C-alpha cells in the first residue's frame, strides 16, 4: 500500500519572484500523526501548507496523498477529499454568503443524506459557538469569529489530514484552550494534523517538529529537543513557552519547565 502522505523533494518558486518559497522538502507521514512546522516570518510555512493540499503545485518534486499526486488535475478531487487546509487569513477561505452556508458548502459536496448534512452543519455551528451568527456574512464577523468559522469549515469535513496555519491567531485565551483540545482530539479518531506556527508552546504535544528557514527544513526532531537549544530556536524566530523563558531568565535549569504548574512547583516546594 502507498504511504499515507509523502513530500518528495518538494520545491516551489513564486512566479516572477527571486526568493524561494520552499526548497527540497522531504517528509513521510503515518496516519494519526501530529506534525508541527515551525519557523520565522517568511520561512515558507504557508507556502508548504498550500503545497500539501494541492492549492499550489510544486515546481519540482512531488506531493503524494495515498498515492495520488497533486500535480495531476484529475487526482485533485481525491486529494481534496483527504486533505483540508485552515488558511492563515480566514477571509481567503470563505466562499459562501452566510456563516451557515459557509459551513454547509464543503459538506454538501460530499454525497451525504440531507439529514446527515443538517446534523453536521448544526454540530459545526454549535461546537464553534457560531450559532448566534449563522445568518450573517462571513466577512462581517469579528477577527476571532472568522478564525472559528475557518476552523469549523474544515473540522466538519473530518479530513484524514488537517492542515492548520496559525489556528490560534485571533482567538481569546479561553478559545485558544478550547480549540487546542478540539484539535488534539482529532488524533484519537486517527486523523493526522500538520500545525504551522512560530510558537513552540503550540507544538509541545506534537509527535515531531520540522523547523523551516529560508524555505528549507533546517531541523527535525521531537519538540522537547528545541527546549534544550533555546538560543538557536530563538534565532529561527521561534517563541519559547512563557514559562520556559521565565525560567531561563531566573537562571533555573529551564529545559524541564514548559508551563505555569511546573514553574510554581520549582519555585515554591
Amino acid at each position, binding site marked *: 500500500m502507498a504511504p499515507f502522505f509523502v513530500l518528495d523533494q518538494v520545491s516551489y518558486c513564486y512566479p516572477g519572484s527571486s526568493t524561494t518559497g520552499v526548497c527540497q522538502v522531504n517528509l513521510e507521514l503515518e496516519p494519526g500523526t501530529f506534525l508541527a512546522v515551525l519557523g520565522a516570518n517568511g520561512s515558507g510555512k504557508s507556502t508548504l501548507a498550500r503545497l500539501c493540499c494541492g492549492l499550489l503545485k510544486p515546481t519540482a518534486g512531488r506531493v503524494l496523498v495515498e498515492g495520488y499526486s497533486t500535480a495531476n488535475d484529475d487526482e485533485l478531487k481525491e486529494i481534496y477529499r483527504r486533505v483540508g487546509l485552515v488558511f*492563515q*487569513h480566514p477571509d481567503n477561505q470563505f466562499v459562501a454568503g452566510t456563516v451557515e452556508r459557509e459551513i454547509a458548502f464543503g459538506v454538501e459536496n460530499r454525497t451525504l443524506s440531507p439529514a446527515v448534512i443538517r446534523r453536521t452543519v448544526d454540530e459545526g455551528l454549535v461546537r464553534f459557538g457560531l450559532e448566534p451568527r449563522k445568518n450573517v456574512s462571513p466577512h462581517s464577523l469579528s*477577527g476571532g469569529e472568522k478564525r472559528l468559522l475557518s476552523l469549523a469549515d474544515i473540522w466538519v469535513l473530518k479530513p484524514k489530514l488537517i492542515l492548520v496555519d496559525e489556528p490560534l491567531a485571533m482567538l481569546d485565551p479561553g478559545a485558544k484552550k478550547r480549540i487546542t483540545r478540539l484539535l488534539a482530539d482529532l488524533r484519537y479518531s486517527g486523523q493526522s494534523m500538520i500545525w504551522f506556527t512560530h510558537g513552540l508552546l503550540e507544538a509541545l504535544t506534537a509527535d515531531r517538529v520540522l523547523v523551516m528557514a529560508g524555505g528549507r527544513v533546517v531541523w527535525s526532531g521531537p519538540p522537547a529537543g528545541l527546549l534544550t537549544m533555546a538560543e538557536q530556536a530563538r534565532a529561527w524566530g521561534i517563541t519559547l513557552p512563557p514559562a520556559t523563558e*521565565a525560567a531561563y531568565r531566573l537562571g533555573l535549569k529551564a529545559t524541564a519547565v514548559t508551563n505555569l504548574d511546573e514553574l510554581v512547583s520549582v519555585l515554591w516546594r
Partner: protein
Amino acid sequence: MVYSRDGEAKIQALNGVSFRVRSGEAVALIGPVGSGKSTLLRVLAGLVKPTSGRVTVEGRKGPVVLAIQEPQRGFFAATVREEVAFGPENLDLDPAEVAARVTWALTAVGLKEERWTVSPFQLSGGEQRRVALAASLAMKPRFLLLDEPTIGLDGPGQAALVETLRKIKAETGLGLLVASHDPDFLFSLTRRVLVLNDGKLTADTTWGGLTHQGPALEALSLELPFLLSLLCRLQAAGAPVEAAQETIEEAWAELSRFYLGRKQEGGDR
C-alpha cells in the same frame, strides 16, 4: 458612546462606552472574541460614526492613526515602500522626509530590505503585518490605535515592535490604545487596562487591579499576563510575594527578589 451595526439584524456592537485617555498614556484593551474591541478602535479612528455619543480629541496637534486587525485587507499600493509612503505623503511632507520616514519605519519593524520593493500582496502573513505597522509608525501619530498588532509576528518581530513602541513613547510621548488577546505583550507596554464584554466596558483598571479578579477574567475567556499569573499562584500557595504589580518591570523585580531570597535561605541552611 453607542455603535450599532446595520445588516439583516441590527447588532449593538458598543453599548454606552465612556472613558478618557490622557495625552501620552498607554492603555490596553482586552475582551473576548466579538466583544467590540475592533469596533471601538474604528470609532475612535473616525472610520465609523457612533449611533450615539461622541469622541473628542483635545490638545497637541498630530494624527490619530489606526493599524487594523487584518492588514492584508487595507493594502493597495504596488510596492511595500509606496504602501508605507502613502500616509506621510498625504501629510504634505517634503519627499526627502517621506523617504527617510519610510526607511526608518521599515527598519524599525525588522522587514528585510530585499522585500521593500515587492508588492505587499506577495508577502507572508508576518511580513504583511510588519508593513502595516510600519505604515502606521511612519505617520508619526500622536495617538496610535493598534488592533491585534502581534498576530502573525514571530518572536523577533514581536520583540522589535515592543522595543520600537517603548522608544517612541519615551521620546515623543506617543499615546497608545492597544487591543490584543496577548496579555504578555500588553503588559510590556501599559499600566492601565480596559475590559470590554458584549459591547460594554466592564472594567477600567490596572494590571495590578486585575490580579484581584482572576476568576472574573477566566469567566470572560481572558487571562492575566504570565508573570502576574505566576505571582498570584505563588502568593496563593503562601509564598512571600505581592502579586498586585502594575508593570512588567515591577513584576520581574518582585519575582527576582523572591527567588533570590529563596536561594539565600537554601544557602544559609
